[in-house]
Protein backbone atom coordinates (compact mmCIF):
# COMPACT_ATOMS: atom_id res chain seq x y z
CA UNK A 1 0.00 0.00 0.00
CA UNK A 2 1.40 3.48 -0.83
CA UNK A 3 2.53 5.47 2.19
CA UNK A 4 -0.18 8.08 1.88
CA UNK A 5 -2.84 5.37 2.05
CA UNK A 6 -1.16 3.73 5.03
CA UNK A 7 -1.03 7.08 6.78
CA UNK A 8 -4.69 7.67 5.96
CA UNK A 9 -5.71 4.27 7.35
CA UNK A 10 -3.69 4.98 10.48
CA UNK A 11 -5.25 8.43 10.74
CA UNK A 12 -8.78 7.02 10.61
CA UNK A 13 -7.76 4.64 13.34
CA UNK A 14 -6.39 7.45 15.46
CA UNK A 15 -9.48 9.67 15.06
CA UNK A 16 -11.58 7.59 17.40
CA UNK A 17 -11.77 3.83 16.99
CA UNK A 18 -13.22 2.75 13.64
CA UNK A 19 -16.31 0.53 13.66
CA UNK A 20 -14.42 -2.20 11.84
CA UNK A 21 -10.67 -2.60 11.86
CA UNK A 22 -8.99 -5.40 9.91
CA UNK A 23 -5.28 -6.08 10.44
CA UNK A 24 -3.05 -8.76 8.91
CA UNK A 25 -5.99 -10.85 7.81
CA UNK A 26 -5.02 -14.16 6.25
CA UNK A 27 -7.52 -16.71 4.98
CA UNK A 28 -7.37 -20.15 3.45
CA UNK A 29 -9.71 -22.45 1.57
CA UNK A 30 -8.18 -25.85 2.10
CA UNK A 31 -4.65 -25.62 0.72
CA UNK A 32 -5.22 -22.34 -1.14
CA UNK A 33 -3.97 -19.30 0.71
CA UNK A 34 -6.34 -16.55 -0.50
CA UNK A 35 -5.72 -13.53 1.77
CA UNK A 36 -2.14 -12.52 2.60
CA UNK A 37 -2.45 -9.86 5.27
CA UNK A 38 -5.37 -7.56 4.48
CA UNK A 39 -5.44 -4.23 6.40
CA UNK A 40 -8.23 -1.67 6.31
CA UNK A 41 -10.66 0.31 8.45
CA UNK A 42 -14.27 1.31 8.14
CA UNK A 43 -15.52 4.22 10.27
CA UNK A 44 -19.06 4.30 11.62
CA UNK A 45 -21.48 5.71 9.05
CA UNK A 46 -19.11 5.25 6.12
CA UNK A 47 -19.78 3.47 2.84
CA UNK A 48 -16.57 1.76 1.76
CA UNK A 49 -16.02 -0.43 -1.27
CA UNK A 50 -13.54 -3.17 -1.98
CA UNK A 51 -12.56 -3.02 -5.64
CA UNK A 52 -10.41 -5.47 -7.54
CA UNK A 53 -10.24 -8.04 -10.24
CA UNK A 54 -11.92 -11.42 -10.14
CA UNK A 55 -10.18 -13.70 -7.69
CA UNK A 56 -8.36 -10.86 -5.90
CA UNK A 57 -9.94 -11.85 -2.55
CA UNK A 58 -12.82 -9.37 -2.14
CA UNK A 59 -15.52 -11.94 -1.43
CA UNK A 60 -13.14 -13.93 0.77
CA UNK A 61 -12.51 -10.74 2.78
CA UNK A 62 -16.25 -10.33 3.45
CA UNK A 63 -16.66 -14.02 4.25
CA UNK A 64 -13.66 -13.87 6.60
CA UNK A 65 -15.15 -10.93 8.50
CA UNK A 66 -18.37 -12.96 8.77
CA UNK A 67 -16.52 -16.07 9.94
CA UNK A 68 -17.52 -18.12 6.92
CA UNK A 69 -14.12 -19.36 5.74
CA UNK A 70 -12.60 -22.62 6.99
CA UNK A 71 -9.44 -20.96 8.36
CA UNK A 72 -8.49 -17.36 9.06
CA UNK A 73 -5.83 -15.53 11.08
CA UNK A 74 -5.06 -11.94 11.95
CA UNK A 75 -7.25 -9.43 13.70
CA UNK A 76 -10.81 -8.28 12.99
CA UNK A 77 -11.95 -5.72 15.55
CA UNK A 78 -15.63 -4.82 15.49
CA UNK A 79 -16.56 -2.02 17.90
CA UNK A 80 -13.11 -2.54 19.40
CA UNK A 81 -13.67 -6.23 20.17
CA UNK A 82 -11.82 -9.12 18.54
CA UNK A 83 -14.07 -11.38 16.45
CA UNK A 84 -11.56 -13.43 14.48
CA UNK A 85 -12.01 -16.50 16.62
CA UNK A 86 -15.83 -16.41 16.87
CA UNK A 87 -18.25 -18.69 15.01
CA UNK A 88 -20.31 -16.91 12.36
CA UNK A 89 -23.53 -17.00 14.41
CA UNK A 90 -21.75 -15.19 17.29
CA UNK A 91 -20.35 -12.59 14.87
CA UNK A 92 -23.85 -11.95 13.49
CA UNK A 93 -25.11 -11.48 17.06
CA UNK A 94 -22.55 -8.67 17.54
CA UNK A 95 -24.31 -6.69 14.82
CA UNK A 96 -22.78 -7.54 11.44
CA UNK A 97 -25.02 -8.73 8.60
CA UNK A 98 -24.04 -10.33 5.31
CA UNK A 99 -25.70 -10.31 1.90
CA UNK A 100 -23.98 -12.90 -0.30
CA UNK A 101 -23.18 -12.47 -3.98
CA UNK A 102 -25.48 -15.34 -4.96
CA UNK A 103 -28.15 -13.63 -2.80
CA UNK A 104 -29.00 -16.77 -0.87
CA UNK A 105 -32.77 -16.59 -1.22
CA UNK A 106 -34.31 -19.81 0.12
CA UNK A 107 -36.45 -21.75 -2.35
CA UNK A 108 -38.41 -23.58 0.34
CA UNK A 109 -39.43 -20.30 2.00
CA UNK A 110 -41.88 -17.71 0.71
CA UNK A 111 -40.99 -14.00 0.54
CA UNK A 112 -42.33 -13.28 4.03
CA UNK A 113 -40.47 -16.19 5.55
CA UNK A 114 -37.26 -15.16 3.79
CA UNK A 115 -37.70 -11.62 5.04
CA UNK A 116 -38.35 -12.68 8.64
CA UNK A 117 -35.70 -15.40 8.75
CA UNK A 118 -32.63 -13.55 10.11
CA UNK A 119 -33.09 -13.16 13.87
CA UNK A 120 -33.16 -9.64 15.33
CA UNK A 121 -29.80 -9.19 17.04
CA UNK A 122 -30.19 -5.63 18.32
CA UNK A 123 -32.74 -2.89 18.65
CA UNK A 124 -32.97 -0.23 15.97
CA UNK A 125 -33.55 -2.34 12.88
CA UNK A 126 -36.05 -1.34 10.22
CA UNK A 127 -39.62 -2.53 10.59
CA UNK A 128 -41.19 -4.68 7.92
CA UNK A 129 -43.27 -1.75 6.70
CA UNK A 130 -40.15 0.43 6.40
CA UNK A 131 -38.54 -2.31 4.31
CA UNK A 132 -41.59 -2.42 2.06
CA UNK A 133 -41.32 1.38 1.70
CA UNK A 134 -37.78 0.93 0.41
CA UNK A 135 -38.76 -1.99 -1.84
CA UNK A 136 -42.45 -1.70 -2.75
CA UNK A 137 -42.19 -4.59 -5.25
CA UNK A 138 -41.69 -7.05 -2.44
CA UNK A 139 -44.96 -6.22 -0.73
CA UNK A 140 -47.03 -7.47 -3.68
CA UNK A 141 -45.16 -10.78 -3.73
CA UNK A 142 -45.23 -11.67 -0.04
CA UNK A 143 -46.70 -15.15 -0.59
CA UNK A 144 -44.53 -16.04 -3.59
CA UNK A 145 -41.82 -18.64 -3.32
CA UNK A 146 -38.55 -16.76 -2.75
CA UNK A 147 -36.79 -18.02 -5.84
CA UNK A 148 -39.78 -17.23 -8.10
CA UNK A 149 -38.90 -13.51 -7.86
CA UNK A 150 -36.96 -11.73 -10.58
CA UNK A 151 -33.23 -11.22 -10.08
CA UNK A 152 -33.76 -7.61 -9.01
CA UNK A 153 -36.52 -8.52 -6.56
CA UNK A 154 -34.37 -11.29 -5.09
CA UNK A 155 -31.57 -8.77 -4.55
CA UNK A 156 -33.99 -6.39 -2.82
CA UNK A 157 -35.21 -9.25 -0.63
CA UNK A 158 -31.62 -10.25 0.18
CA UNK A 159 -30.80 -6.66 1.25
CA UNK A 160 -34.19 -6.06 2.88
CA UNK A 161 -34.03 -9.05 5.19
CA UNK A 162 -30.75 -7.97 6.81
CA UNK A 163 -32.09 -4.47 7.56
CA UNK A 164 -34.59 -5.86 10.08
CA UNK A 165 -31.96 -7.36 12.33
CA UNK A 166 -30.60 -4.19 13.87
CA UNK A 167 -27.10 -4.93 12.54
CA UNK A 168 -25.18 -1.66 12.04
CA UNK A 169 -22.53 -2.98 9.67
CA UNK A 170 -23.80 -4.40 6.38
CA UNK A 171 -21.52 -6.48 4.15
CA UNK A 172 -22.91 -6.41 0.61
CA UNK A 173 -21.28 -8.63 -1.99
CA UNK A 174 -21.84 -7.29 -5.54
CA UNK A 175 -25.44 -6.21 -5.05
CA UNK A 176 -25.65 -4.87 -8.63
CA UNK A 177 -24.30 -7.90 -10.44
CA UNK A 178 -26.37 -8.92 -13.46
CA UNK A 179 -29.15 -6.39 -12.82
CA UNK A 180 -30.83 -3.98 -15.22
CA UNK A 181 -29.64 -0.32 -15.02
CA UNK A 182 -32.94 0.87 -13.52
CA UNK A 183 -32.62 -1.68 -10.70
CA UNK A 184 -28.98 -0.75 -10.16
CA UNK A 185 -30.11 2.88 -9.70
CA UNK A 186 -32.75 1.79 -7.21
CA UNK A 187 -30.15 -0.12 -5.21
CA UNK A 188 -27.83 2.91 -5.37
CA UNK A 189 -30.60 5.14 -3.94
CA UNK A 190 -31.28 2.55 -1.24
CA UNK A 191 -27.63 2.50 -0.18
CA UNK A 192 -27.66 6.31 -0.01
CA UNK A 193 -30.79 6.22 2.20
CA UNK A 194 -29.27 3.60 4.46
CA UNK A 195 -26.16 5.76 4.88
CA UNK A 196 -28.34 8.70 5.92
CA UNK A 197 -29.99 6.44 8.48
CA UNK A 198 -26.57 5.72 9.97
CA UNK A 199 -25.84 2.28 8.58
CA UNK A 200 -22.19 1.46 7.88
CA UNK A 201 -21.72 -0.40 4.62
CA UNK A 202 -18.82 -2.42 3.26
CA UNK A 203 -19.46 -3.14 -0.38
CA UNK A 204 -17.73 -5.47 -2.80
CA UNK A 205 -18.02 -4.18 -6.38
CA UNK A 206 -16.69 -4.96 -9.83
CA UNK A 207 -18.52 -1.95 -11.24
CA UNK A 208 -16.51 1.05 -9.98
CA UNK A 209 -18.77 3.49 -11.83
CA UNK A 210 -21.56 2.33 -9.55
CA UNK A 211 -19.21 2.30 -6.55
CA UNK A 212 -18.30 5.93 -7.26
CA UNK A 213 -21.95 6.98 -6.91
CA UNK A 214 -22.38 5.58 -3.39
CA UNK A 215 -19.04 5.24 -1.61
CA UNK A 216 -16.88 7.53 0.56
CA UNK A 217 -13.69 5.55 0.04
CA UNK A 218 -12.40 2.64 -2.03
CA UNK A 219 -9.84 0.00 -1.16
CA UNK A 220 -8.22 -1.81 -4.08
CA UNK A 221 -7.55 -5.48 -3.37
CA UNK A 222 -4.86 -7.27 -5.35
CA UNK A 223 -3.55 -10.80 -4.82
CA UNK A 224 -5.05 -11.03 -1.35
CA UNK A 225 -3.70 -7.67 -0.08
CA UNK A 226 -4.87 -4.07 0.00
CA UNK A 227 -2.96 -2.42 -2.84
CA UNK A 228 -4.30 1.09 -2.48
CA UNK A 229 -6.88 3.34 -0.87
CA UNK A 230 -8.62 6.05 -2.87
CA UNK A 231 -11.04 8.65 -1.48
CA UNK A 232 -14.10 9.01 -3.65
CA UNK A 233 -13.34 12.74 -4.05
CA UNK A 234 -9.95 11.86 -5.54
CA UNK A 235 -11.33 9.25 -7.89
CA UNK A 236 -11.12 11.35 -11.07
CA UNK A 237 -7.47 12.17 -10.44
CA UNK A 238 -6.69 8.49 -9.92
CA UNK A 239 -8.61 7.13 -12.88
CA UNK A 240 -5.54 5.91 -14.80
CA UNK A 241 -4.20 4.13 -11.77
CA UNK A 242 -7.57 2.53 -11.13
CA UNK A 243 -7.86 1.33 -14.73
CA UNK A 244 -4.46 -0.25 -14.25
CA UNK A 245 -5.54 -2.02 -11.06
CA UNK A 246 -8.79 -3.29 -12.45
CA UNK A 247 -7.56 -4.02 -15.94
CA UNK A 248 -10.49 -2.27 -17.59
Amino acid at each position, binding site marked *: MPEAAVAETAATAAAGAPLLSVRGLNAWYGESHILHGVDFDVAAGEVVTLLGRNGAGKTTTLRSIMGMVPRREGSILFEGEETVRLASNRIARRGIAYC*PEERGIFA*SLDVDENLLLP*PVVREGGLTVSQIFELFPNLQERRRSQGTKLSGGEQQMLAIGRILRTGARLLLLDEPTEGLAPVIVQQIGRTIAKLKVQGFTILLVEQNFRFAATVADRHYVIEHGRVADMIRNADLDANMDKLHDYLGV
Partner: protein
Amino acid sequence: MDVLGIPTQALFGQLLIGLINGAFYAMMSLGLAVIFGLLNIINFTHGAQYMMGAFCAWFLLERAGIGYWWSLLLAPVIVGATGVVIERTMLSRLYQLDHLYGLLLTFGLALIIQGVFTNYYGSSGQPYRLPEEFAGAFNLGFMFLPKYRAWVIVASLLVCFGTWFVIERTKLGSYLRAATENPALVQAFGVNVPRMITLTYGAGVGLAALAGVMAAPIYSVNPQMGANLIIVVFAVVVIGGMGSILGAILTGFGLGVVEGLTKVFYPEASNTVIFVIMVLVLLVKPAGLFGKER
Protein backbone atom coordinates in the same frame (compact mmCIF):
# COMPACT_ATOMS: atom_id res chain seq x y z
CA MET B 1 -71.10 -60.33 2.50
CA ASP B 2 -68.36 -60.57 -0.13
CA VAL B 3 -66.36 -58.08 -2.19
CA LEU B 4 -64.78 -59.62 -5.29
CA GLY B 5 -65.15 -63.02 -3.68
CA ILE B 6 -63.41 -61.91 -0.46
CA PRO B 7 -65.35 -61.81 2.82
CA THR B 8 -65.59 -58.18 3.96
CA GLN B 9 -64.48 -59.23 7.44
CA ALA B 10 -61.14 -60.41 6.03
CA LEU B 11 -60.86 -57.45 3.68
CA PHE B 12 -61.36 -54.85 6.41
CA GLY B 13 -59.23 -56.83 8.81
CA GLN B 14 -56.28 -56.71 6.43
CA LEU B 15 -57.00 -53.11 5.58
CA LEU B 16 -56.76 -52.28 9.29
CA ILE B 17 -53.48 -54.18 9.64
CA GLY B 18 -52.26 -52.29 6.58
CA LEU B 19 -53.21 -48.95 8.13
CA ILE B 20 -51.46 -49.86 11.40
CA ASN B 21 -48.30 -50.89 9.57
CA GLY B 22 -48.63 -47.77 7.45
CA ALA B 23 -48.82 -45.65 10.60
CA PHE B 24 -45.46 -47.03 11.72
CA TYR B 25 -43.94 -46.69 8.24
CA ALA B 26 -45.07 -43.07 8.16
CA MET B 27 -43.72 -42.14 11.61
CA MET B 28 -40.41 -43.90 10.93
CA SER B 29 -39.84 -42.50 7.45
CA LEU B 30 -40.80 -39.04 8.72
CA GLY B 31 -37.92 -39.10 11.21
CA LEU B 32 -35.55 -40.41 8.54
CA ALA B 33 -36.64 -37.66 6.14
CA VAL B 34 -36.11 -34.89 8.71
CA ILE B 35 -32.67 -36.24 9.66
CA PHE B 36 -31.58 -36.73 6.06
CA GLY B 37 -32.78 -33.26 5.09
CA LEU B 38 -30.64 -31.42 7.60
CA LEU B 39 -27.78 -33.80 8.41
CA ASN B 40 -27.37 -35.47 5.01
CA ILE B 41 -27.07 -38.72 6.91
CA ILE B 42 -29.05 -41.86 6.18
CA ASN B 43 -29.79 -42.93 9.73
CA PHE B 44 -29.56 -46.72 9.69
CA THR B 45 -29.75 -46.72 13.50
CA HIS B 46 -33.40 -45.67 13.20
CA GLY B 47 -34.73 -49.23 13.60
CA ALA B 48 -32.58 -49.85 16.67
CA GLN B 49 -33.81 -46.56 18.14
CA TYR B 50 -37.41 -47.63 17.54
CA MET B 51 -36.61 -50.84 19.41
CA MET B 52 -34.98 -48.81 22.21
CA GLY B 53 -38.20 -46.82 22.50
CA ALA B 54 -40.21 -50.01 22.95
CA PHE B 55 -37.70 -51.41 25.46
CA CYS B 56 -37.66 -48.10 27.31
CA ALA B 57 -41.44 -48.28 27.75
CA TRP B 58 -41.15 -51.89 28.88
CA PHE B 59 -38.44 -50.99 31.43
CA LEU B 60 -40.42 -48.07 32.75
CA LEU B 61 -43.47 -50.32 33.25
CA GLU B 62 -41.72 -53.42 34.64
CA ARG B 63 -39.00 -51.80 36.73
CA ALA B 64 -40.47 -48.45 37.75
CA GLY B 65 -44.19 -49.01 37.42
CA ILE B 66 -44.49 -46.08 35.06
CA GLY B 67 -47.37 -46.67 32.69
CA TYR B 68 -48.05 -46.25 29.00
CA TRP B 69 -49.03 -42.57 28.98
CA TRP B 70 -45.90 -41.37 30.76
CA SER B 71 -43.83 -43.64 28.53
CA LEU B 72 -45.21 -41.86 25.46
CA LEU B 73 -43.51 -38.76 26.83
CA LEU B 74 -40.47 -40.17 28.64
CA ALA B 75 -39.20 -42.80 26.20
CA PRO B 76 -38.78 -40.36 23.27
CA VAL B 77 -36.97 -37.92 25.57
CA ILE B 78 -34.63 -40.58 26.97
CA VAL B 79 -33.88 -42.25 23.64
CA GLY B 80 -33.68 -38.82 21.95
CA ALA B 81 -31.03 -37.87 24.52
CA THR B 82 -28.94 -40.88 23.49
CA GLY B 83 -29.34 -39.61 19.92
CA VAL B 84 -27.97 -36.22 20.99
CA VAL B 85 -24.91 -37.95 22.43
CA ILE B 86 -24.40 -39.97 19.22
CA GLU B 87 -24.66 -36.81 17.10
CA ARG B 88 -22.28 -34.77 19.26
CA THR B 89 -19.62 -37.47 19.64
CA MET B 90 -19.78 -39.25 16.27
CA LEU B 91 -22.05 -38.00 13.49
CA SER B 92 -20.85 -34.40 13.70
CA ARG B 93 -17.44 -35.54 12.49
CA LEU B 94 -18.87 -36.98 9.28
CA TYR B 95 -20.75 -34.05 7.70
CA GLN B 96 -17.90 -33.12 5.35
CA LEU B 97 -17.64 -36.68 4.06
CA ASP B 98 -19.62 -38.79 1.61
CA HIS B 99 -23.10 -40.11 2.59
CA LEU B 100 -21.59 -43.57 2.71
CA TYR B 101 -19.66 -42.87 5.92
CA GLY B 102 -22.78 -41.83 7.82
CA LEU B 103 -24.57 -44.89 6.54
CA LEU B 104 -21.74 -47.21 7.62
CA LEU B 105 -21.47 -45.62 11.06
CA THR B 106 -25.18 -45.72 11.78
CA PHE B 107 -25.46 -49.26 10.41
CA GLY B 108 -22.62 -50.36 12.70
CA LEU B 109 -24.26 -48.64 15.66
CA ALA B 110 -27.54 -50.44 14.90
CA LEU B 111 -25.76 -53.83 14.94
CA ILE B 112 -24.03 -53.00 18.24
CA ILE B 113 -27.21 -51.82 19.92
CA GLN B 114 -29.21 -54.82 18.71
CA GLY B 115 -26.37 -57.14 19.75
CA VAL B 116 -26.25 -55.72 23.27
CA PHE B 117 -30.01 -56.01 23.73
CA THR B 118 -30.01 -59.57 22.33
CA ASN B 119 -27.22 -60.46 24.72
CA TYR B 120 -29.26 -59.38 27.75
CA TYR B 121 -32.80 -60.18 26.69
CA GLY B 122 -32.48 -62.97 24.10
CA SER B 123 -34.35 -62.86 20.87
CA SER B 124 -37.72 -63.94 22.22
CA GLY B 125 -40.06 -61.06 22.90
CA GLN B 126 -41.17 -59.46 26.15
CA PRO B 127 -44.90 -58.83 26.29
CA TYR B 128 -46.02 -55.26 27.06
CA ARG B 129 -49.33 -55.17 28.93
CA LEU B 130 -52.01 -53.25 27.13
CA PRO B 131 -53.22 -50.31 29.22
CA GLU B 132 -56.66 -51.06 30.70
CA GLU B 133 -58.38 -48.15 29.00
CA PHE B 134 -57.69 -49.81 25.66
CA ALA B 135 -59.24 -53.19 26.48
CA GLY B 136 -62.07 -54.10 24.13
CA ALA B 137 -63.10 -53.05 20.68
CA PHE B 138 -65.53 -50.85 18.81
CA ASN B 139 -68.20 -52.72 16.86
CA LEU B 140 -68.36 -50.89 13.55
CA GLY B 141 -71.05 -53.23 12.17
CA PHE B 142 -68.88 -54.58 9.39
CA MET B 143 -65.94 -55.36 11.68
CA PHE B 144 -64.56 -55.13 15.21
CA LEU B 145 -61.96 -52.39 15.64
CA PRO B 146 -59.76 -52.98 18.70
CA LYS B 147 -59.58 -49.74 20.69
CA TYR B 148 -55.80 -49.70 20.87
CA ARG B 149 -55.43 -50.05 17.09
CA ALA B 150 -57.87 -47.20 16.56
CA TRP B 151 -55.73 -45.14 18.94
CA VAL B 152 -52.51 -45.96 17.08
CA ILE B 153 -53.99 -44.75 13.79
CA VAL B 154 -55.34 -41.54 15.30
CA ALA B 155 -52.19 -40.84 17.32
CA SER B 156 -49.85 -41.43 14.41
CA LEU B 157 -51.91 -39.12 12.21
CA LEU B 158 -51.63 -36.47 14.94
CA VAL B 159 -47.86 -36.99 15.22
CA CYS B 160 -47.45 -36.77 11.45
CA PHE B 161 -49.61 -33.68 11.16
CA GLY B 162 -47.82 -32.07 14.13
CA THR B 163 -44.39 -32.69 12.60
CA TRP B 164 -45.53 -31.38 9.22
CA PHE B 165 -47.02 -28.30 10.89
CA VAL B 166 -43.85 -27.51 12.85
CA ILE B 167 -41.66 -27.82 9.76
CA GLU B 168 -43.88 -26.09 7.20
CA ARG B 169 -45.77 -23.51 9.23
CA THR B 170 -43.63 -22.25 12.12
CA LYS B 171 -40.63 -19.98 12.55
CA LEU B 172 -38.56 -22.89 13.86
CA GLY B 173 -39.52 -24.84 10.75
CA SER B 174 -38.42 -21.98 8.49
CA TYR B 175 -34.96 -22.11 10.14
CA LEU B 176 -34.95 -25.84 9.53
CA ARG B 177 -35.94 -25.57 5.88
CA ALA B 178 -33.49 -22.74 5.27
CA ALA B 179 -30.64 -24.62 6.99
CA THR B 180 -31.42 -27.67 4.87
CA GLU B 181 -30.73 -25.50 1.80
CA ASN B 182 -27.81 -23.37 3.00
CA PRO B 183 -26.63 -24.01 6.57
CA ALA B 184 -23.63 -21.65 6.35
CA LEU B 185 -25.80 -18.65 5.48
CA VAL B 186 -28.40 -19.40 8.17
CA GLN B 187 -25.58 -19.56 10.70
CA ALA B 188 -24.19 -16.27 9.40
CA PHE B 189 -27.58 -14.72 10.20
CA GLY B 190 -26.97 -15.55 13.86
CA VAL B 191 -28.68 -18.93 14.21
CA ASN B 192 -26.76 -21.58 16.12
CA VAL B 193 -26.96 -24.17 13.34
CA PRO B 194 -24.75 -26.84 14.95
CA ARG B 195 -27.06 -26.88 17.97
CA MET B 196 -30.08 -27.02 15.69
CA ILE B 197 -28.61 -30.03 13.87
CA THR B 198 -28.00 -31.81 17.18
CA LEU B 199 -31.56 -31.17 18.36
CA THR B 200 -33.00 -32.21 14.99
CA TYR B 201 -31.23 -35.54 15.21
CA GLY B 202 -32.50 -35.92 18.78
CA ALA B 203 -36.05 -35.13 17.62
CA GLY B 204 -35.88 -37.58 14.70
CA VAL B 205 -34.63 -40.29 17.05
CA GLY B 206 -37.36 -39.31 19.51
CA LEU B 207 -39.95 -39.89 16.77
CA ALA B 208 -38.57 -43.39 16.21
CA ALA B 209 -38.75 -44.06 19.95
CA LEU B 210 -42.33 -42.77 20.08
CA ALA B 211 -43.26 -45.20 17.31
CA GLY B 212 -41.54 -47.90 19.37
CA VAL B 213 -43.65 -47.14 22.46
CA MET B 214 -46.81 -47.23 20.37
CA ALA B 215 -45.73 -50.54 18.84
CA ALA B 216 -44.91 -52.17 22.20
CA PRO B 217 -48.49 -53.35 23.05
CA ILE B 218 -49.07 -54.62 19.48
CA TYR B 219 -45.85 -56.44 18.64
CA SER B 220 -43.76 -58.17 21.25
CA VAL B 221 -40.84 -56.09 22.52
CA ASN B 222 -37.74 -57.81 21.14
CA PRO B 223 -34.25 -56.72 20.05
CA GLN B 224 -34.87 -57.51 16.37
CA MET B 225 -38.17 -55.65 16.03
CA GLY B 226 -36.48 -52.62 14.50
CA ALA B 227 -34.23 -54.56 12.15
CA ASN B 228 -37.27 -56.19 10.56
CA LEU B 229 -39.10 -52.89 10.21
CA ILE B 230 -36.25 -50.70 8.99
CA ILE B 231 -35.72 -52.56 5.71
CA VAL B 232 -39.33 -51.92 4.68
CA VAL B 233 -39.14 -48.33 5.94
CA PHE B 234 -36.11 -47.65 3.76
CA ALA B 235 -38.03 -48.95 0.76
CA VAL B 236 -40.87 -46.59 1.77
CA VAL B 237 -38.44 -43.67 1.98
CA VAL B 238 -36.93 -44.49 -1.41
CA ILE B 239 -40.41 -44.65 -2.96
CA GLY B 240 -41.54 -41.41 -1.32
CA GLY B 241 -38.33 -39.54 -1.98
CA MET B 242 -35.65 -38.64 0.58
CA GLY B 243 -36.17 -35.38 2.40
CA SER B 244 -39.87 -34.81 1.60
CA ILE B 245 -42.03 -34.53 4.73
CA LEU B 246 -45.47 -34.86 3.17
CA GLY B 247 -44.12 -37.52 0.82
CA ALA B 248 -42.94 -39.62 3.76
CA ILE B 249 -46.35 -39.46 5.44
CA LEU B 250 -48.46 -40.21 2.36
CA THR B 251 -46.16 -42.97 1.12
CA GLY B 252 -46.02 -44.57 4.56
CA PHE B 253 -49.78 -44.89 4.96
CA GLY B 254 -50.33 -45.66 1.26
CA LEU B 255 -47.84 -48.51 1.14
CA GLY B 256 -49.16 -49.97 4.40
CA VAL B 257 -52.60 -50.18 2.81
CA VAL B 258 -51.21 -51.60 -0.44
CA GLU B 259 -49.40 -54.25 1.54
CA GLY B 260 -52.57 -55.12 3.49
CA LEU B 261 -54.66 -55.38 0.34
CA THR B 262 -52.03 -57.58 -1.29
CA LYS B 263 -52.41 -59.96 1.66
CA VAL B 264 -56.08 -60.29 0.77
CA PHE B 265 -55.87 -60.59 -2.99
CA TYR B 266 -52.51 -62.25 -3.58
CA PRO B 267 -50.97 -63.28 -0.24
CA GLU B 268 -47.87 -64.80 -1.86
CA ALA B 269 -46.69 -61.31 -2.88
CA SER B 270 -47.45 -59.51 0.38
CA ASN B 271 -43.84 -59.58 1.59
CA THR B 272 -42.39 -58.38 -1.68
CA VAL B 273 -44.97 -55.96 -3.06
CA ILE B 274 -43.30 -52.89 -1.51
CA PHE B 275 -39.96 -53.82 -3.04
CA VAL B 276 -41.54 -54.41 -6.43
CA ILE B 277 -43.09 -50.93 -6.21
CA MET B 278 -39.70 -49.57 -5.18
CA VAL B 279 -38.06 -51.00 -8.30
CA LEU B 280 -40.81 -49.62 -10.54
CA VAL B 281 -40.61 -46.16 -8.95
CA LEU B 282 -36.81 -46.10 -9.23
CA LEU B 283 -37.05 -46.96 -12.92
CA VAL B 284 -39.54 -44.21 -13.68
CA LYS B 285 -38.71 -41.53 -11.08
CA PRO B 286 -35.30 -42.11 -9.48
CA ALA B 287 -35.75 -39.30 -6.95
CA GLY B 288 -38.94 -40.89 -5.59
CA LEU B 289 -42.59 -39.91 -5.96
CA PHE B 290 -42.27 -36.69 -3.93
CA GLY B 291 -38.50 -36.14 -4.08
CA LYS B 292 -36.67 -33.45 -5.97
CA GLU B 293 -33.68 -34.26 -8.13
CA ARG B 294 -30.54 -32.92 -6.51
